């Protein structure tokens, strides 16, 4: 197998006395979709933000295409090809929907006209073209999720980090979201998606990684994971804790 796109090596992250990530390692291949799941407080978000560059690890190393990116700020990681969405949706509310996406597409196109052209295409890809000139602040929250995805896609990432993009969607919207992620996957972009609900990621991903209490407790196909006693215990524990 060729060199992995992303190599995360032994990440530790402490918050005071709490160890949110405890020796977490993960490889992602080119074009692979990895689902990152786990009960509340498992350290998913911490791990996600460390890969995105929003949080610095206490210890550990992150390689992207063989290059050490551990010290890079999110903007520079994005230049290399790592894009992300946010758990709590973030849009540039005073700008129109299309302009939101242009912000992303300008990364690869210095000329605003070509950037706008590309943004239009991405907009169609996420099926938001009817809202092109609407201020982003006026979108509904599922629309904002799609806008966020479009913005991230417009930076032409090689790796896309999706943080609970399906959270809060109605079943119909979630189906639409799943179809969208499938289309993204067809374009060859590797994806790491964090989801709290296991059912959503299962049909989408090549591989599931389960975090609990800051450690990876299981990794494998959807079928392997659902029968793994450790995972079952962790999720059972979660439902009791909750």
């Amino acid at each position, binding site marked *: 197998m060729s060199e992995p796109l992303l190599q995360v090596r032994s990440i530790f992250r402490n918050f005071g006395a709490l160890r949110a990530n405890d020796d977490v390692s993960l490889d992602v291949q080119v074009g692979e979709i990895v689902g990152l799941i786990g009960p509340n407080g498992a350290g998913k978000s911490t791990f996600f933000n460390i890969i*995105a560059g929003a949080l610095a690890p206490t210890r550990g190393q992150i390689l992207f295409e063989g290059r050490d990116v551990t010290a890079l*700020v999110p*903007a520079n990681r994005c230049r290399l090809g790592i894009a992300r969405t946010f758990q709590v949706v*973030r*849009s540039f509310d005073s*700008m129109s929907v299309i302009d939101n996406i242009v*912000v992303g597409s300008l*990364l690869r196109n210095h000329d605003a006209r070509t950037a*706008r052209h590309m943004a239009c295409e991405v907009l169609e890809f996420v099926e938001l073209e009817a809202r092109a000139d609407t201020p982003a602040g006026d979108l509904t929250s599922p629309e904002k999720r799609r806008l966020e995805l479009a913005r991230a896609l417009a930076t032409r990432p090689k790796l896309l980090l999706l943080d609970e993009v399906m959270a809060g969607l109605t079943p119909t919207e979630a189906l639409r979201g799943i179809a969208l992620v499938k289309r993204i996957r067809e374009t060859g972009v590797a994806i790491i998606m964090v989801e709290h609900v296991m059912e959503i990621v299962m049909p989408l991903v090549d591989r599931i990684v389960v975090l609990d209490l800051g450690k990876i407790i299981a990794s494998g196909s959807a079928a392997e994971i659902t029968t793994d006693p450790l995972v079952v215990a962790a999720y059972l524990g979660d439902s009791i804790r909750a």
Partner: protein
Amino acid sequence: MDRALQASRSSFAERHIAEASARRRRQLVAVALFALVAACLPLFVTDVYTLNVVILTLMYLALSTGWNILGGYCGQISLGHAIYFGIGAYGTVLLYMMAGVVPWIGLLVSAALAAGLALALGYFCFRLAGHYYTIATIVIAEAALLLVLNWDWTGAALGLQLPFGPDSWATLQFGRTKVPYFYFVLALSLLAWLTAWIIEGARWGYWWRAVKDDAEAAGSLGVNIFYSKMGASAISAFFTAVGGAFYALFTSYIDPNSVFGFRISLLIALPAVLGGIGTLWGPAIGAVLLIPLGEVTRSYIGGSGSGADLVTYGALVVMVSLLRPEGLVSLLHLRKRTRGARP
């Protein structure tokens, strides 16, 4: 990715881009028309007082457009732009008086100096977020005022009087008529507007607006937040200093309070806030409303000590902030917005 995008290449993009460029062309046509009408004003306005108000209005229009580049597009609210205004004014006058540098050169030198200072201050201040930044701008401008007030070399509190010379475009001195100043400041406001227009359509403009709305999200899209703020700050300071230089030449007398004072910072920021922060026409609309209104309240209700103009400014700014945070310019888009916004 590319393959899928290519497959979806459609008339939508072409149509949208055609519309967008048409919109930008219309803006150019509109400003050309305004400029043409404005250029004819001296033919009708012969009264010295009115012409004075018109010139000041255009000056604040240019200044506020410059302020808007940093405060509006990039979201860094400065209430200390008087420091750049003062540098432009003092720099130009001092270079002329002490070294005989013609104001055209002096103006560019001081503006470059102001831009440099903006970068130096920005290097430290842009680590401060939101309100902390605004406070820093106020305190630093006040410190500059205090220094100039007590610095004999700059004439201290007495200020500086430009030596009288013959009317000339070379020295930008006109004693007999104010009309040349009108054309100078009209050109300056056009230049400021054009800069804003170019920025709006360029990479920086998009990135700055993204930084203003959500810096972290902008960073996640590859935008360098710090450089964005620095760039916006330098351009903004440059125009502010040119405005200051103009003011010094126009009034031919400056003192610390009239160019470094907080009132200047305020009058630079308020038009943009009223008209619409981060919009192309906002500062112009704001200045055209605010400056004549302030002058009128001042002259009809009482001298500048009476405070009536402060009440007017304050009331306007509170009302707009509460009722129309997007600024008065949004009233023009009201129809379009309600049509497009509802799902």
